[in-house]
């Protein structure tokens, strides 16, 4: 178990180092996120729909689309010069490879979310600070779920024609449970409802994370077998 985690950390560190040196993917994802937040504000009738009514949907559409764009990066960079062959030949279990990719994607998507959240609070004039604790918990739970599934799907999607579009077609159905649960909880948190009321939705988020993380580790082997 310790060895698995050490190997996964090594894969994640490699990915993050690559990203740290170029910063292209991170910066473009960040710019994309800010743009979506800004555009969303204009995609409504300000006299009929207040910014706060639209805020939870905006937050979750932005996060899930940003995640979708970022997820292709992890395996796309391994396809260049067939770097994936090196990873597969390395003395490293497939589960560690998958977990490493998930960790790197989590750090990546999490960093974008951490910067986007204050911008969201600013643009939409939402009191994020009073509910920050529960909100961060919900963001973490939802992000873990869709990054776990997305990392696995992207390992397959990058090997197909139209990789970006393919990931979106495969991924969007899987976004439905975590995004709907997260958006419901977020909306209720913003309207001042107690967090304890959201147990049903939280169970869905936690259950989704457990089921899909385990399942994805189990089936990942077959997505990289050559």
């Amino acid at each position, binding site marked *: 178990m310790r060895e698995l985690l050490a190997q996964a950390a090594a894969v994640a560190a490699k990915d993050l180092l690559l990203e740290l040196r170029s910063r292209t993917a991170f910066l473009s994802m960040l710019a994309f996120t800010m743009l979506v937040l800004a555009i969303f504000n204009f995609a409504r009738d300000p006299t009929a729909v207040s910014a706060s009514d639209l805020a939870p949907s905006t937050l979750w559409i932005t996060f899930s689309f940003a995640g979708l764009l970022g997820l292709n990066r992890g395996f796309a960079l391994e396809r260049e010069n067939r770097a994936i062959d090196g990873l597969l030949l390395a003395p490293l279990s497939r589960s560690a490879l998958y977990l490493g990719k998930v960790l790197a994607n989590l750090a990546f998507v999490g960093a974008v979310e951490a910067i986007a959240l204050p911008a969201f609070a600013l643009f939409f004039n939402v009191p994020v600070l009073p509910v920050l604790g529960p909100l961060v918990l919900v963001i973490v739970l939802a992000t873990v779920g869709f990054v776990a599934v997305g990392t696995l799907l992207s390992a*397959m999607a990058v090997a*197909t024609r139209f990789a970006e579009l393919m990931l979106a*077609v495969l991924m969007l159905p*899987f976004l439905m*449970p975590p995004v*709907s649960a997260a958006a419901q909880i977020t909306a209720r948190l913003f309207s001042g409802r107690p967090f304890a009321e959201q147990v049903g*939705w939280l169970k869905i988020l936690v259950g989704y994370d457990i089921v899909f993380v385990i399942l994805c580790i189990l089936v990942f082997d077959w997505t990289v077998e050559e």
Partner: protein
Amino acid sequence: MTEPARVTGAVPGRSHVWLWLALALLAGVYVRALAFTPVERVQGLAQKIFYIHVPSAWAAFLAFIVVSACSVGYLVLKDQRLDLIAASSAEVGVVFTSGVLLTGPIWAKPIWGAWWTWDARLTSTLFLWFIFFGYLVMRSAVGEPGQRARYSSVLGILGAPLVVFIHVSVTLFRTTHPQPVVLKPQGPTLPGEMLTTLLLSVAVFTVFYLALTARRYALAKAELARAQALAEGDHAA
């Protein structure tokens, strides 16, 4: 990459016999549903769509279970036939799912007053359609057969818990879909003649599903044989 093998002419095998039988039974069950089953008192003739809608939904879910089961089977046994059955079942499943999604609104408009609502069953069926569709799109985008089989099996396995999660998360919203009238703890509450017609149509749709899948499977095998023959021809030349 080999070019897709198109098989022209008759599909080999006996599967067409089953297909004709299924179509004949289908005609029979509708004669019964329309002429020999009482008209529902509140909903009137609109309720007759029930005998297409419910069995289609059954066949769609059966197709999905077959896809998931064959996907697990393929990854364990690496038998190419299981992959072809899963692919055939997914293609037939998308047809039945489309049937459910088309017949539902026709009934819903006069009864609910709206073509569509985001009810638990409607949403899960719609997403079932998306999953089937993604599965088939994925298959068409991967050229190498072994890789295609592995990828689609992974997708077939992940799809099963997803359908459950989608259903549960939408059930937390209010549901307006009619509740089950047959499969429920207190036993069926559907009147006897309607129940018989429904069960008959479910049985017929099962035969119909099996016949279509068997026929699609025979075609898939023929396509594969042709692709292999073409590949060998290339080697020889």
